């Protein structure tokens, strides 16, 4: 049985960058069952990103707070959660690392952060499917430094633009961070996942890792979603677990989309091994 050190670990990413897949991998590893975990029962009941948990811990309904007030409260809130933990807790987030005041949006008490990044050109394709919006709108969203996400049952939060999201998390020095490219995870999930586990101080056998990877295969996730839906998909969304393909942007994006993304984020992309087309 895999053993995981106690404490809070952020699973951070810009949306549609493989975060849910890594959650499923970790869940399959820690459960260690003979069958894949149910994607509708991922350990997410008490998600600190939800309004329920925020209200429960702070005694304040975040719906009564304006953006700035909420941003002021969140670092202490997340640090409080981290300080109370006696077991391991992997928490998904799409928050930008720093808020508008330059303070860490999620505090600084997590023991580690895993940052998933993906070729922003493929992110644009996936975002347009996820939100059922045009590619132009998806590309514009990725370039909006003031982009807000969340709402409904989730706390509203600052997502910002793709480039600041990546550099904000990877270059910060408050929380030990490991950056993992989605593309590398696709090419060799077992090796990449083993690297992740080593960084997180998780001990697991090769067999346990192999089994978790098998139980988290995209085809398995798609099978479960087709059979019973996925609670985290959006209303009207056709599929959450779509193609997951690397390089799909080459067939889908127009030259203007590529030019916008590369023009804006070319420096960050090249630093992370995403070859520019121009």
């Amino acid at each position: 049985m895999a053993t995981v050190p106690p404490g809070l670990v952020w699973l951070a990413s810009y949306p549609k960058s493989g975060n849910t897949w890594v959650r499923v991998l970790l869940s399959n590893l820690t459960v260690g069952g003979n069958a894949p975990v149910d994607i509708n029962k991922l350990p997410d009941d008490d998600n600190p990103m939800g309004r329920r948990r925020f209200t429960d811990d702070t005694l304040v309904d975040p719906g009564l707070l304006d953006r700035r007030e909420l941003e002021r409260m969140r670092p202490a809130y997340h640090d409080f959660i981290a300080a109370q933990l006696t077991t391991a807790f992997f928490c998904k987030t799409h928050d930008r690392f720093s808020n508008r005041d330059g303070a860490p949006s999620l505090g600084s008490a997590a023991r580690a952060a895993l940052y998933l990044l993906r070729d922003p050109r493929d992110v644009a394709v996936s975002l347009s499917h996820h939100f059922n919006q045009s590619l132009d709108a998806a590309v514009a969203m990725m370039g909006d430094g003031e982009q807000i996400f969340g709402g409904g049952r989730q706390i509203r939060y600052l997502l910002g633009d793709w480039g600041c999201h990546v550099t904000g998390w990877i270059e910060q020095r408050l929380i030990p961070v490991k950056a993992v490219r989605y593309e590398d995870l696709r090419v060799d999930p077992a090796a990449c996942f083993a690297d992740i586990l080593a960084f997180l101080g998780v001990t697991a056998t090769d067999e346990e890792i192999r089994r978790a990877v098998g139980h988290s295969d995209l085809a398995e996730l798609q099978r479960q979603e087709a059979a019973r839906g996925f609670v985290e998909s959006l209303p009207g969304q056709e599929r959450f677990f779509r193609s997951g393909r690397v390089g799909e942007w080459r067939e889908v994006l127009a030259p203007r989309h590529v030019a916008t993304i590369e023009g804006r984020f070319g420096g960050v992309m090249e630093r992370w091994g995403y070859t520019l087309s121009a």
Partner: protein
Amino acid sequence: MNATSKISQSYRYRMSGLTVASEIPLPGAVPQAADDAVPVDAVFRLGDVPERLDNPHHFGPEWFADDQQFLLNLPDVGRFTAINGREIVISPAPGMTVRDALPFVVGTTFSALLYQRGGWLLHASAVVHRGRAFAFCGDSGAGKSTLAAALCRIGCDFVTDDVCAVDHPTGSAPLVRPDGRMLRLFPDSIRRAGLEDAVGSPVRMSIDKFHVTPPTQAPDAAPLAAIYLLGDASPARPPGIEELSGANAAQALLRFSYRRRLALAYAGQGRLALRTAALLAHVKVHRLIRQRDLARIEETVAALQVHWNDTAG
């Protein structure tokens, strides 16, 4: 000392079974005529509030509770304290208006005062239909207010849209007490409920939610007939109403205590469990799975009417 002697001019309210005197008006609360014959249970006043309590037995990121006091310290908003179940002191942060700080007083801080007095609160909206009260538990954002507004539209009397005080004297049937506040709704819910003419002031200047006068207010106490837990329909979970088993119902009521950590701070797990067990001897708890789409709220209202007719006793 009389609780009111500290304040010269007071506004009177009836909130969750208490008569409240406040030196400042409480937007969104229904004012009462001052009556010297009616004793004041609690006072609200402006004053200094410390940053923290020294030896809290319960605490959170921005709050502290000991046997006598509860203190909420919200950065850039203000500090608020509830003392001995009798008094609330309000200290807005520099640059914050009293008015915009008050939602945290009449909600969380007043709930602490009620818990200090031994009260019991559900995070629920509630209405009265033909003399029976029905409560709808849900987390923040679950649609409690919107459902209450839709039920008021078909003639139900409004009890509360957020804090449902349950009064359960030994040997008697449980009662719910109105929180004395108006509905608080987003513009789309206001339009859907046809309550555009009843819209009052914003709940806070910076948020798009408004006080709305309900068509009719419930009396000061009404017998609680049933509790519903709001849930969203999905392809895997079709709309419907199902009764919860005793164990699940008890667990749900603990979960939906208003500001659960305050309930635990002042009542403790044991007392809450005893109260829950006593309540469940009188009241059934149901899961109400409904379409969240506002355009389909009448389907939920219709399902509830059928359920109430079927369970009329």
